């Protein structure tokens, strides 16, 4: 009974991915299932077709910069709140979390209004900044969790042994926070990679990210590369979160109690 229920959920979650995986193997330029012949040519096409390759590179670089900036915004907030909970700290934390809680069109429309008014509409850095703001809450959650796992007595112990504030940051905080920093970066990176609406409203008319390109292909002509690159994105997300799970405690990161 339990197994059947879990299997049904598993099937529901896997079905769309399985279909596009099947479609992506078509030997001909068509989106049919079951596939007409089996070929990996549409996976090769991601690398060989310049427009898809560029879209992928664009997406990856935007995601890398945006995730790094999101971490750079989140880290000081989590650190300051860990040091001392102040009203100002709480307000900044709330601002960091809000964009992600509100519907994404809000951030997208705000970005569109802001960047066009500021005269930077279409510049590539705008999507990096807006993504970073939108995804700040992800590293903020993981880092806050990370800091809360550092008992104050740990820091005090280091101080009694001769560590000044800089030494505490270097020898205690940095190594203990690193796994949470990496997973926060990973979450922001993967979500930025997949984000469509904010990217579209900031640089939609000047650059093509992968989601924008897939959307355009949906409207102006199907190609099996849509399927192969979608499968690649699923695999990439699974790989990244798998690595987070491999080198960290995923259940704990998602809110389960510490393993005893």
């Amino acid at each position, binding site marked *: 009974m339990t197994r059947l229920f879990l299997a049904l959920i598993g099937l529901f979650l896997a079905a769309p991915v399985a279909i596009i995986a099947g479609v992506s193997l078509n030997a001909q330029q068509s989106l049919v299932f079951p596939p007409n012949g089996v070929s990996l040519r549409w996976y090769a096409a991601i690398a060989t077709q310049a427009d898809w390759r560029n879209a992928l590179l664009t997406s990856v670089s935007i995601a890398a910069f945006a995730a790094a900036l999101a971490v750079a915004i989140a880290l000081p907030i989590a650190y300051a709140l860990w040091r001392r909970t102040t009203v100002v700290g709480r307000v900044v934390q709330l601002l960091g979390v809000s964009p992600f809680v509100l519907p994404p069109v809000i951030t997208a429309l705000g970005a569109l209004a802001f960047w066009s008014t500021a005269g930077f509409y279409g510049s590539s850095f705008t999507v990096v900044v807006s993504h970073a703001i939108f995804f700040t809450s992800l590293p903020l959650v993981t880092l806050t969790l990370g800091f809360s796992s550092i008992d104050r007595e740990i820091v005090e112990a280091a101080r*009694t*042994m001769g560590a000044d504030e800089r030494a505490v940051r270097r020898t205690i905080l940095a190594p*203990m926070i690193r796994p949470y920093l990496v997973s926060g970066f990973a979450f922001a990176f993967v979500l930025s990679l997949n984000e469509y609406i904010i990217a579209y409203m900031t640089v939609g008319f000047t650059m093509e990210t992968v989601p924008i390109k897939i959307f355009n292909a949906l409207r102006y002509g199907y190609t099996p590369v849509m399927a192969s690159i979608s499968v690649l994105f699923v695999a990439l997300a699974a790989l990244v979160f798998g690595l987070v799970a491999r080198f960290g405690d995923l259940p704990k990161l998602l809110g389960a109690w510490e393993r005893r």
Partner: protein
Amino acid sequence: MTALVLDGVTKRYGATTAVDAVDLTIPDGTLVCLLGPSGCGKTTLMRMIAGLEAPSAGEVRMGSETITGIPVHKRGFGMVFQSLALFPHLSVGDNIAYPLRLRGESRGTIEARVRELLDLVQLPGVEGRAITQLSGGQRQRVAIARALAVAPRLFLLDEPLSALDAKLREAMQVELRLLQERLGITTIVVTHDQREAMTMADQVVVMRGGRVLQMDRPIEVYRRPATPFVADFLGQTNLIQARREDGGARLASGAFLPDLALPSETALLSIRPEDVILLPEGEGPIAAEVEFVRDMGSAVEIYLRAGEARIVAHREAGAAVAPTGGRVSLGIRPGAPSVFPAEAA
């Protein structure tokens, strides 16, 4: 000698006073226990000695040197925390080496010292292990080794054994005491466990409400408690109200004890269980009924009722005792009760 001296040390948080003008002198090479119930200020006092908190008033001196203003990381004390505070991201060896590395010691010196310290706490060869691979007792030893790594002038332990189970805790108390004697290092232990204090301390400092009630050798504190609270907190005791009468004292239960002079009209007596003498019915001044007998094997505890008062008496192992419900008489060993004037209660 370089005694640790506290001079009017006070800590206030807003309107509450956690530590209230404490004066203490801790002689070089001794082990002193700060003993008291939770919230009595003992941990705050230790944190001020360590430099983790700044006193609101008063001074801390090592010998003639005032250290009140010296930041914690420059004091060079060793401290064991209640949670042990071992660094989870470092191996056992790296934990112990931590203070040595901060001092810029050479690699060879550090390795030799870590080995030496692990031998000292009887955990040889575990340098490479992760903290999570150790048992509670082993972690305890690593924390002690780490705190001793730089041969501190003062060794501070904040409820160091509270995480251990009862048996291990008692064994570690003895071991810690022997280690301290061997090293001759001035040591302060915060504890709420009176047995721990009795086991380890040269001097016990009993605290309550941010004040020091008494400081003395443990057995002196036990035999001559300064207040009824101290009598009750350190070991078991019977606290009984008494009134002055001609030639003796009248207990609340109505019994009359001759030859007990009270300093005031009414007083509180503290009588240790081992000072209560059980006699056949009618042969002693206090009539009582046996309510419950706890035979621990190593000793017998007898719980009695005398009028309104409940009294506990101890007898040696194997002593014959009246059965539950049996009527007996009680006597008090002459000179044994501690007498407190009523206003001290």
